[in-house]
């Protein structure tokens, strides 16, 4: 579905992504894991065309996304930090998104109902707490049914009940044979939600296989243990070198 072909991304002197190649297939769910600043969000933003790679190409359904924009209606995206027009109310925001997408798109308001966001339709975005903002982001990501969902730290800042609601929704979508890509630092969540793992470190992909395979390679039962063992084996510890 999505093939990333040898992309590099440099922000000035800083290399955010280095020769990243990935094949993401429909029906699979990927956990994108790595320490802070390892390039996860840059990779996600590159898929969405928000960040333009320095070199390399990304294909969505065998078509380069370089000058394309229509493919984005096949992606539901939940950003890590949702930036929304601050003086808009929640209701206006949802109306606007529906309006921009066009009348004939059917919308999926399951999460709006489950999070009881309709009770706060008049609240302005600048008055929202971090958690509510996160709920709005989640509801927006799932507002239009799409074959691909990309969620950047979906459960960060959510209360336990909302986290469960969101996880159920993700599992539900996963059963519908969709492509999911989730970044998170909460490994127990990822163990429930995903089957494959991509481990990034300093802009490079170091592991790309199923979680089962990782556990098998490291002889561990739990994902968290398996991952720490993997990191120790490969010595993927931040290189403390004077620049």
């Amino acid at each position, binding site marked *: 579905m999505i093939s990333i072909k040898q992309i590099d991304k440099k922000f000035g002197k800083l290399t955010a992504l280095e020769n990243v190649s990935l094949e993401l297939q429909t029906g699979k769910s990927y956990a994108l894991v790595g320490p802070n600043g390892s390039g996860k969000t840059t990779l996600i933003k590159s898929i969405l065309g928000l960040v333009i790679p320095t070199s390399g190409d990304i294909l969505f359904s065998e078509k380069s996304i370089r000058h394309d924009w*229509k493919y984005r*209606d096949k992606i539901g995206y939940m950003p890590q930090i949702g930036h*929304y*027009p*601050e003086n808009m109310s929640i209701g206006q925001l949802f109306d606007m998104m529906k309006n*921009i997408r066009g009348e004939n798109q059917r919308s999926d308001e399951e999460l709006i109902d489950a999070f009881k966001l309709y009770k706060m339709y008049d609240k302005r975005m600048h008055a929202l707490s971090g958690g509510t903002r996160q709920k709005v982001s989640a509801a927006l990501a799932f507002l239009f049914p799409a074959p691909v969902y990309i969620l950047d730290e979906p459960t960060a800042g959510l209360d336990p009940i909302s986290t469960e609601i969101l996880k159920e929704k993700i599992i539900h979508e996963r059963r519908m044979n969709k492509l999911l890509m989730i970044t998170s630092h909460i490994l127990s969540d990822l163990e429930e939600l995903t089957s494959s793992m991509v481990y990034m470190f300093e802009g490079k992909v170091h592991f790309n296989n199923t979680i089962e395979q990782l556990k098998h390679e490291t002889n561990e039962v739990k994902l968290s243990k398996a991952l720490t063992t993997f990191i120790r084996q490969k010595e993927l510890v931040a290189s403390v070198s004077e620049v």
Partner: protein
Amino acid sequence: MTRVLKYILYDILRTRFILLYTAFLFISTFGLYQLDSDAGKVVLSLLNIVLMVVPLVSIVFSTIHFFNSYEFIELMLAQPVKRSTVFLGEYMGVACSLCAAFVTGVGVPMLLFGINANALTMLYTGVTLTLVFVSLAFLSSVLTRDKAKAIGIALLFWLYFSLIYDGLLLWVVYSFSDYPLEKITLVLIAFNPVDLARIIMLLQLDISALMGFTGAFYQEFFGSYLGMVLSTLVLFIWIVLPIALAQRIFNRKDL
């Protein structure tokens, strides 16, 4: 495009700045008409407002607006919307509202006190200058990620075209006064949209005595009609070039 534009216009109208700007223009034009009974003199006084205030307001407001709608832009770009649609939508939204404010603020008093060709040319120059400076504002907005820096660049553009350029031009004419500079000055004038607007207006008012050296030569060289067409064409380039360049930069920008 129209859907995106609708929300941009809605956002601009809510800030109320446009209303204040309209009121300011209305009051100053109205006041000038009351101070002087000669419509020609009123237009001449208005010219000074148009040449200084309109570019300043246009460029600063557009730059601030661009950075304030960064969230909206970011949100739209994650949707199936073309980058150029968002960018040109922003341009059109800001340009249309500023032009509407100018035409209402200056045009309504003109209608009340009697409109003529001079007044219409005034409106036309104001609208063109607005478009040019909104264009320059968008260019300064995409040049940097920092709002303060972008406003700095915008103010620099304004300062350069309103004051510094004329000083430089005078200096050149003065230092090389031994040489025949007429044609060179004509070319140099094309590099400043404010000068072009001034010349259009002065050609219309037919007061070459007030235009100084270049203006007088301009009129002699082209005659009123050709001079106006030429200045308009060059002003058009001043609108298109910065926004086209800004669009190119924006299309490759990381968000």
